[in-house]
């Protein structure tokens, strides 16, 4: 396991500047659609024609992965699932797998959390209950069933630590100290803790240091984990930032329909990624919380 960065946070100009920090072939830890993927950087990665990315879904993936896969940026996906949730299958992922164009390492949600928590704690593995008897085990030579060393006749699965090169996500706030407010989306902290570097886009900058505020601090990811931040207003669109804007369900349906064919997907990219106009974002109002 490589020693991880603890430098101070860089303030980058925008999502494209973040995408420039993500080299081809990087192993990216990404949150699910409900937990603030940085869609702004996903779009920027497509624009900079990133290639051979490896994606880790923590613990599942959706629109962010489907866009990157469809645009040819991805060589491999490790995830417990890739889907658009209520909007249905992830069409570009599904087609890429069915045509054997994408390497998939199938996992199960708690195995991914466990693997990242192992890196978070600096241990080479952690055990996980269940899973034994699932065909997932045979497909994962890195997973190993052992006899519990503390009890006789008790088989248990060991999951090795995973260390992404880069944690990438969006957040509501960054402050002047480089701290990031992730609120209740604590999987973002786990990804950041376990990754060698971490880039975050944010809605708004807050003055001062959120760690000085007892009410905000519980939702803060300390800047010690944050390599760089960049502002990206509505940077999770068409997904949501709790308390700021809701999921754009209509846009997700539009995407699910468009991306059913390669041509439809290209037209979607043309309109929403290549000819980038944030004004097109039409996120609904936030729920009141």
């Amino acid at each position, binding site marked *: 396991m490589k020693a991880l960065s603890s430098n101070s946070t860089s303030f980058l100009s925008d999502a494209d500047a973040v995408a420039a920090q993500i080299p081809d072939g990087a192993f990216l830890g990404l949150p699910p659609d409900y937990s603030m993927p940085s869609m702004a950087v996903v779009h920027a990665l497509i624009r900079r024609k990133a290639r051979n990315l490896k994606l880790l879904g923590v613990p599942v993936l959706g629109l962010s992965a489907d866009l990157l896969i469809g645009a040819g940026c991805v060589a491999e996906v490790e995830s417990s*699932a890739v*889907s658009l949730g209520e909007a249905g299958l992830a069409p570009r992922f599904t087609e890429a797998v069915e045509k054997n164009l994408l390497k998939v390492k199938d*996992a*199960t949600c708690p195995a991914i959390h466990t693997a990242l928590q192992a890196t978070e704690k600096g241990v080479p593995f952690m055990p996980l209950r*269940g899973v034994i008897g699932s065909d997932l085990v045979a497909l994962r030579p890195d997973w190993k069933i052992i006899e519990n060393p503390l009890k006789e006749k008790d088989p248990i699965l060991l999951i090795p630590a995973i260390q992404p090169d880069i944690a990438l996500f969006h957040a509501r706030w960054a402050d002047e100290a480089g701290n990031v407010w992730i609120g209740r989306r604590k999987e973002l902290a786990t990804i950041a803790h376990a990754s060698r570097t971490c880039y975050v886009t944010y809605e708004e900058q807050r003055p001062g240091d959120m760690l000085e505020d007892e009410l905000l601090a519980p939702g803060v990811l300390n800047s010690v984990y944050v390599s760089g931040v960049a502002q990206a207003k509505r940077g999770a669109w068409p997904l949501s930032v709790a308390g700021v804007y809701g999921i754009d369900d209509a846009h997700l349906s539009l995407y699910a329909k468009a991306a059913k064919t390669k041509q439809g997907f290209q037209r979607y990219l043309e309109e929403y990624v290549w000819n980038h106009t944030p004004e097109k974002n039409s996120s609904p109002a936030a729920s009141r919380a």
Partner: protein
Amino acid sequence: MEPYAREELLACCIARLIRDARHVAVGAASPIPATGVFLSKALNNKKLRISLLHKRQGNAFTEGSRELFDLAGQGRIDLFFLGGAQIDGEANINLVRAEGKRFPGSFGSAFMYFAAGRTILFREEHSKRVLAPKVDFISAPGWSPPGVERRGGPQALLTGKALFVWQKDKRRFRLESVHPGHTVREIREQTGFDYDVAPECAVTAAPSAEELRLMRNEVRTEILANYPEFAARVWPSS
């Protein structure tokens, strides 16, 4: 008898299966199970704790997406729901691939099927394709050999046409009831795996007036916030 939607019948079946659960977790894209759980709470289980995994507002999970699995590992989830691209007669489920088709993936099933107190399998499509003799890929096994630690397993399998209960000792499903409009023979023809038939096997009871009233009022309100398309379709604003 009042007319009702197919979704309302299925939600009633689920509500009747909840029994004395104290804490039920409901995953993504599960509006019918969610409806059944809220109905159970409204009917006869006022203290039932319902944790919607993807609740859009006031989400109960403050430790991120790991908390559901930790809760289950702690034994604090009494009941969970799983589906399957395929489900077989040993209650194995497949969420990964079948007949050249790719599905989203196993999600947390390989863990939750073991760790939740019990699991209700739910899949609307009732066909030999889905209810297969043997799943092409085991995302999560329906049972485990002695010595493999496992807190829970399947309780029942609900489809759009019938309700089966799981017989743990026999490792077989038993047909419990057939939904109105379908027959025991039709179920046998459209099920790819073998199963027992309960001597008392009957037609699934239709939703009562009270069940319908609750679903169309307080339950609808809960569902609308998190499954807006579903709620709008099943209970269009009157």
